[in-house]
């Protein structure tokens, strides 16, 4: 995002970190407004296991932020050099980072980029840095979204892979807490895989791997790594569970009085409703079965936490409407069962003969997406049309199948996949060739192309794209047509979209689609 300078406060002699924002952001009014707003809120975050925000100037030619200088290694550096943390230090990190999140969320701020490199050790006590900044970048352009995804995908909550992740709530930070603590205790992230794409797929579809963590911390981490934001505890609930947990937590707190003081202070700091959790709407209230009876367990003592730990499998904090009103709301949790197996990815099945998941749409340029027994896409003045459709984000292995008809000579049917923001892969099915391109914010790079006469005008053909690992295989009418690598680390998840383009300059292109089946594999 910019350059960090070590500076000295002339008046106090105190060392500070000055974070200067990259010049290209300075010219964006939207960025300045967001940066101003976020910094003002970040300055209200109490310094409980956080690096204090000391000053900022969003109006400066080069906007900057001044924060407390934490003279110590990051959690990432410690684990890389010394291996996973042992029990005492691990619980110190768990409590310290939860304390920081409680303080940050209490001020109405969402961190959005919590990861081991943003946890620094100051005299052995963890401090979280860089909160409340990422959102300013996400709100402006696509400049850094993809950059950030490369570095932090292992700590990103499932909802952050949605095509519009701006609705992300504080629950995403709680998920990141679980991933950070798992990394600290085992040396690996809970959804670790060979590539960012595979990691994203595991985050979206697989249970976490936390077997190396000690109990009862393991159950708490599992709880925070729930796929659904509403199934995760708030930072305050998490902190309360940690503070009233097992012997190791008690020992850690007795040995680190400054950590206990910070944790208790954060515990009683503001409780802004920033979470996207299931307050007033439990898992079962929403879509599942009513519980025959709720089993409420007080989390006031060690025995209670031990009982939770012994309950086995994942724990799900459950709030109900009647627990919302009073302070008791955060002091009781109930036990719910583990998921029976891996979470499924999405799927879409549509004949494309009538509007409902896809809708009719006419562009200003004269292009259109409409229904005439099939889904008919026509370009207007522009050379390319992309039709709105289901917004489900797919990750990992996937199959995309759809019937394609090139209705007018010189037309190409387009299928985008792993499309997020303005980037993704685009398959063009044209009269004389099939081509796979990488579309990156308006810039195209051809991955591969083959000559093919399968999509001659007026002929309906089944197009299938199988995404497995880092390879895409295209078959036409059941016959393999091409295979290509899909290895761009930024394109780990995204929508499937349909559209059309002109291959020649002989008037508007027109293609149609039918019998769409998009499935997670």
């Amino acid at each position, binding site marked *: 995002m910019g350059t960090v300078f070590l500076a000295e406060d002339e008046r106090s002699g105190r060392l500070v970190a000055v974070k200067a924002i990259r010049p290209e952001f300075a010219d964006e009014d939207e960025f300045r407004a967001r940066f101003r707003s976020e910094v003002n809120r970040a300055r209200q975050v109490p310094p409980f296991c956080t690096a204090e925000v000391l000053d900022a100037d969003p109006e400066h030619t080069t906007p900057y932020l001044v924060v407390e200088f934490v003279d110590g290694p990051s959690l990432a550096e410690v684990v890389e050099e010394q291996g996973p943390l042992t029990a005492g230090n691990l619980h110190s990190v768990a409590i310290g980072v939860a304390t920081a999140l409680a303080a940050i969320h209490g001020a109405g701020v969402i961190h959005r980029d919590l990861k081991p490199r943003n946890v620094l050790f100051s005299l052995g006590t963890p401090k979280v840095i860089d909160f409340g900044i990422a959102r300013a970048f996400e709100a402006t352009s696509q400049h850094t979204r993809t950059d950030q995804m490369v570095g932090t995908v292992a700590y990103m909550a499932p909802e952050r892979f949605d095509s519009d992740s701006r609705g992300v709530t504080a629950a995403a930070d709680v998920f990141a807490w679980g991933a950070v603590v798992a990394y600290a205790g085992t040396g690996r992230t809970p959804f670790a895989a060979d590539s960012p794409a595979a990691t994203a797929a595991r985050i979206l579809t697989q249970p976490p791997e936390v077997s190396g963590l000690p109990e009862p911390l393991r159950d708490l981490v599992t709880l925070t790594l729930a796929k659904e934001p509403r199934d995760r505890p708030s930072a305050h609930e998490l902190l309360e569970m940690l503070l009233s947990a097992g012997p190791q937590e008690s020992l850690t707190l007795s040995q680190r009085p400054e950590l206990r003081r910070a944790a208790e202070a954060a515990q009683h700091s503001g409780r802004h409703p920033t979470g996207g959790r299931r307050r007033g709407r439990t898992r079962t209230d929403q*879509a*599942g*079965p*009513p*519980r*025959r*009876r709720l*089993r409420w367990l007080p989390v006031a003592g060690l025995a209670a936490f031990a009982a939770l730990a012994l309950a*086995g499998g994942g724990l799900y904090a459950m709030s109900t409407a009647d627990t919302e009103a009073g302070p008791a709301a955060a002091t009781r949790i109930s*036990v*719910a*069962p*583990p998921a*029976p*197996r891996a979470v*499924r*990815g*999405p*799927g*879409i*099945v*549509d*004949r494309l*003969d*009538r*509007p*409902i*998941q896809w809708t009719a749409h006419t562009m200003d340029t004269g292009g259109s997406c409409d229904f005439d027994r099939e889904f008919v896409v026509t370009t207007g003045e522009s050379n390319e049309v992309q039709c709105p459709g*289901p917004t*489900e984000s797919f990750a990992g292995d996937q199959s995309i199948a759809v019937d394609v008809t090139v209705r007018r000579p010189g037309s190409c049917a387009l299928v985008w996949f792993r499309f997020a923001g303005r980037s993704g892969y685009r398959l063009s099915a044209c009269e004389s060739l099939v081509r796979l391109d990488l579309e990156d914010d308006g810039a195209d790079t051809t991955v591969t192309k083959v000559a093919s006469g399968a999509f001659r005008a007026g002929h309906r053909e089944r197009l299938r794209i199988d995404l497995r690992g880092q390879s895409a295989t295209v078959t036409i009418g059941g016959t393999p047509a091409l295979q290509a690598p899909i290895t761009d680390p930024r394109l780990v998840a995204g929508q499937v979209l349909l559209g059309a383009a002109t291959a020649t300059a002989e008037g508007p292109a027109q293609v149609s689609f039918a019998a769409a089946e998009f*499935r*997670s594999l």
Partner: protein
Amino acid sequence: MNRLPGLVAALALLTAGCSAPEEAPSPPATSAPVSAAPTPTFTDVSRGDTESVVKLLKYDRQALAVVVEPTVFLDGTSFCTAFRIPGTDPRCERDWVTEDSKIKVTLPLGTRAKLLTVRGGDPDGVLVRLTTEDGTATRIAEVYLP
């Protein structure tokens, strides 16, 4: 949206265990499971004649279309047996439990299809008993869950 509210008594007052795995959660010979695993399977409502409990995601009478999500709907005991979940699990004691497929399936709505709801409100997102004939929704009845 054309609804027939207040037909509580006429609705599918589904008791738990209406689709125990051994009895197959429905697919008649003309339909195939959407997903190969696990058992029990989700009903492929897009083909053949089927009857199953699904989640109604969208209902558009004008477009004669619905979007549904196939589910597994079982009583607690059957659910735990089917998914090999220990009997101490709280779900085993529930009257009914669902497992969602996460697959959104668009179906044509028969011109004479009936939508039966319990309270007459917006049915989107509720569990319904769906009847299809040759991949077309012909009867949709909200599952009454007192």
